[in-house]
């Protein structure tokens, strides 16, 4: 285990130190006193790498990441997991806006709330399915322009009658699946979105992902699955498929 004290260290130097530690063969790194340093874990490749972060990491964490696991003990900021390819990001607290932009693989699990524009432009295919789960609530534009992958919102901290998701849900969505625990008001959804009850197969998939989330955050999966989910999918299929062929 390599420990790096990040107190007052500029992001450039901190990320150089992380890369140096990896080059020296260290695979488990703990960063102490992190506060606002950008790009932690960005562009890192390798399944065996684990980075533990004490403090609040800055924007653009885990962008383009391919393989490593990052664990954040508190809150995190904006733009996590931009175009991430594989690996896992765990945030114990809340996280900010534009999470998982264009994410194409791996996991982003946030124990608490997430901000606006989460899962925007996410994409996926069978062998590499990105999954974002928030245990809390989400802001507007959840799953905007979503093209693939899975977005799950649990709202575990929601007060009774409170909507756990914001406006413009799935606006422009044309692929992937969004699961919301509880009811969804169709008025909050983009025009391209249909609301359905998950079928047996969906529930199995959902339980698989939520079990993983619960294991990571020591939560009870049965408790969470007791409440019914709604499934949101695009109701138009490749609307511009013939644009250049027509």
């Amino acid at each position: 285990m390599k420990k790096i004290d990040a107190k007052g260290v500029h992001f450039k130097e901190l990320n150089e130190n992380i890369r140096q530690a990896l080059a020296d063969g260290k695979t488990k790194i703990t960063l102490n006193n992190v506060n606002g340093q950008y790009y932690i874990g960005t562009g890192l490749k390798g399944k065996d790498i684990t980075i533990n972060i004490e403090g609040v990491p800055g924007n653009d964490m885990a962008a383009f990441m391919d393989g490593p696991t990052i664990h954040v003990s508190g809150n995190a900021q904006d733009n996590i997991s931009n175009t991430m390819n594989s690996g896992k990001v765990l945030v114990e607290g809340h996280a900010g806006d534009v999470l998982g932009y264009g994410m194409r693989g791996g996991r982003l699990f946030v124990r608490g709330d997430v901000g606006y524009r989460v899962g925007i432009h996410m994409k996926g295919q069978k062998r590499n399915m990105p999954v974002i789960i928030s245990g809390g609530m989400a802001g507007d534009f959840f799953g905007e322009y979503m093209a693939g992958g899975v977005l799950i919102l649990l709202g575990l901290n929601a007060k009774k009658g409170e909507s756990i998701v914001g406006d413009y849900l799935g606006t422009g969505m044309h692929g992937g699946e969004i699961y919301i625990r509880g009811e969804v008001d169709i008025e909050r959804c983009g025009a391209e979105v249909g609301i359905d009850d998950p079928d047996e197969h969906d529930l199995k998939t959902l339980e698989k992902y939520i079990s993983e989330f619960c294991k990571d955050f020591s939560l009870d999966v049965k408790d969470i699955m007791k409440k019914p989910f709604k499934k949101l999918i695009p109701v138009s299929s490749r609307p511009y498929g013939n644009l250049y062929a027509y």
Partner: protein
Amino acid sequence: MNHDYQKDIAGCGLTGLINKKKKPIDGSHIKKSLSLMNDRGNGLGAGYAAYGVYPEMADCYAFHVMYDFDSSRMEAEELLKANYEIEKIEAMPTKPVKEIVISPLLIRYFLKPKKDKITGDQSEEDFVVKTVMQVNSEIEGAYIFSSGKNMGAFKGVGNPAEIADFFCLEEYEGYIWTGHTRFPTNTPGWWGGAHPFTLLDWSIVHNGEISSYGINKRYLEMFGYKLTLLTDTEVVAYLFDLLVRKHGLDIGMACKVLASPFWKDIDKMDAEDKEIYTALRQTYGSALLNGPFSLLFGHSKGLVGINDRIKLRPLVAATKDDFVYMASEESAIREICPDPERIWTPRAGEPVIVDLEE
């Protein structure tokens, strides 16, 4: 993979704090908070606003003025002396900072309008606003960038720490502070263009872009405001002056003019709210701010944070004891308040309004 690729990727950064019981805080805190977000700016503008900094001169207007030429100063002082009792003129205290190689002449005036010069139904504030507009638009190379009582703006071209050091910020004590680091996108990075933008006691720091600048500018010009600082944010300071001071809206209502609810949301309101918000949008359509923004609005009685209606710029708020903090990034708050009681991200268009306790 080449990790040496260098590109400036940034947006502006802002931070602010208020002590509701008016406990004076020196400028080192806001400098520390803003400096954490150094990489959000690019050195082409940084600045601070501070309230409670001139308690011994609290009944005078404190004008901070930038002059490009000696002739600008002569001309401006002629106008000021004719219209104001000047209690004190002094060079603004500055200290040499290696990175700041050129700066305008910076002079500070403590003054009171001559009673006999205020005519008709003009208020004292109207008179001061008129002076600011006149100097900024008519005297070449002269800019009054701060004109409130017991408050001041300190700004220029440099990064947050450089500008704070240049203006000896640590020697000031105030109970409301805002700070801004700039990444100019489509207007010049010059001393007058740095944030905050102020008028009387109003001060604005802003991250984003006011796409409605043209509409807002023409609207403000109808009320005699002159837009001279070549930057979109200037309209916000004057809009608050118009809406709150001239038209008597409360601050919450003024925020709902600048970031008004969408029509689809107004449609869902109960009859009374629907009437109010419809009237606001109809009356003040030209005061609506379009485009991405998060901004902090300081005034003599409090601090307000707000972002645009679809939250295209970040804003985080936190509380600790009698303090409220707001910033572009949580880390900027934690840098000076490691252990806040509550930390949250305000929803789009929902202002965080903090008042000083009476």
